[in-house]
């Protein structure tokens, strides 16, 4: 039951993009086509889950015992960027097909604040490891949902007669705002 609440909360109610404003850069950047957003979502899910597990272990078995929790930010970002590098190298060797699909999105993830954000939130919300993993996966699904919906709308938006000043980013942001408005309706779910 608790896990279902975490999932619904992270996917719909507190959607990481539309309610928490994390991961806006890739959300705006790679959402012009549905196909690229699928790739990005896959890469985010992979790295986010892995990063949450590793940072959880580091926090509870290194930072807390040595009383150096003030090094949280610096150690997390180092872990995430090296993790991304490692995933890139391993993927290249093990599964060239998957690497083809996710490859170009992996470097972008280092600066995706959603990954670091979820890792920090897992500590803040005092989740245990399993809850943390569920939370990370649910957030990745939430990210995928938001970006896929958005990409679908943007593909149509390109065919519309948008006023000149509003073309591109402004129109996209207003659309994102309306999507966020729709997602607020989920608040009654929990």
């Amino acid at each position, binding site marked *: 039951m608790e896990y279902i609440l975490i999932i619904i909360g992270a996917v719909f109610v507190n959607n990481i993009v539309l309610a928490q404003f994390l991961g806006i850069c890739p959300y705006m950047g790679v959402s012009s086509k549905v196909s690229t957003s699928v790739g990005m979502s896959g890469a985010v899910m992979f790295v986010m889950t892995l990063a949450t597990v590793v940072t959880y272990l580091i926090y509870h078995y290194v930072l807390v015992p040595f009383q150096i929790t003030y090094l949280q930010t610096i150690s997390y970002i180092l872990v995430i960027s090296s993790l991304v590098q490692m995933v890139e190298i391993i993927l290249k060797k093990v599964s060239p097909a998957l690497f083809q699909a996710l490859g170009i999105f992996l470097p972008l993830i280092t600066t995706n604040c959603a990954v670091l954000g979820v890792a920090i939130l897992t500590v803040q919300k*005092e989740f245990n490891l399993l809850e943390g993993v569920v939370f990370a996966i649910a957030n990745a699904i939430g990210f995928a949902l938001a970006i896929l919906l958005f990409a679908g709308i943007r593909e149509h938006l390109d065919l519309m007669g948008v006023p000149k000043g509003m073309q591109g980013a402004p129109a996209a942001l207003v659309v994102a705002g309306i999507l966020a408005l729709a997602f607020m309706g989920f608040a009654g779910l929990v």
Partner: protein
Amino acid sequence: MVLTLLVITVVASFTLASVYNVTKEPIAAAREAARQNAITMVVPEFDRLESRMFLPLTGRDSLEFNFAYKDDELVGVAVGTYTDQGFSGRIRAMVGFYPDGRIVDVVHLQHAETPGLGDKIEKSKSDWSDQFRDFDPATQVLRVTKDGGNVDAITAATITSRAYCDGIQRAYETFIANVKTPEGGAE
């Protein structure tokens, strides 16, 4: 190459360690000031304070009870309570009781609720939490009206209001179990 990175990391860690040591005291002082401030807001005037920890009936972390005395007579108890049912993360609040169990006042200590909706639990944002003044949990129910209680929920933030009630209820139950009979002496 590796050496350069190592040097940078070591220098960075040492810098942070020294900044941490410099700011450690002010951070602790700021937290202590916020706690003291919250205590004075939720209990009647006092001249002596005693703190003790009690394990609540529900929930895994213990609550901090601050007994406020004036001229050696108990005038109120400020309870640092918490709830994990908030919209986003733990909400901590300070609840003040008269010795007979009525609530003096409630102030929030920490929360991450939605700005514009759930953050109305803050005294500076809205007078919503004023309804807990003189609230008597013995005769009134600490639940939102939707759930059959006597607390008006914040518009469009029922989850937050429910959570706040849960936190106050936790403080009240623990207060009744540990304080009222042996030391309160009101009944």
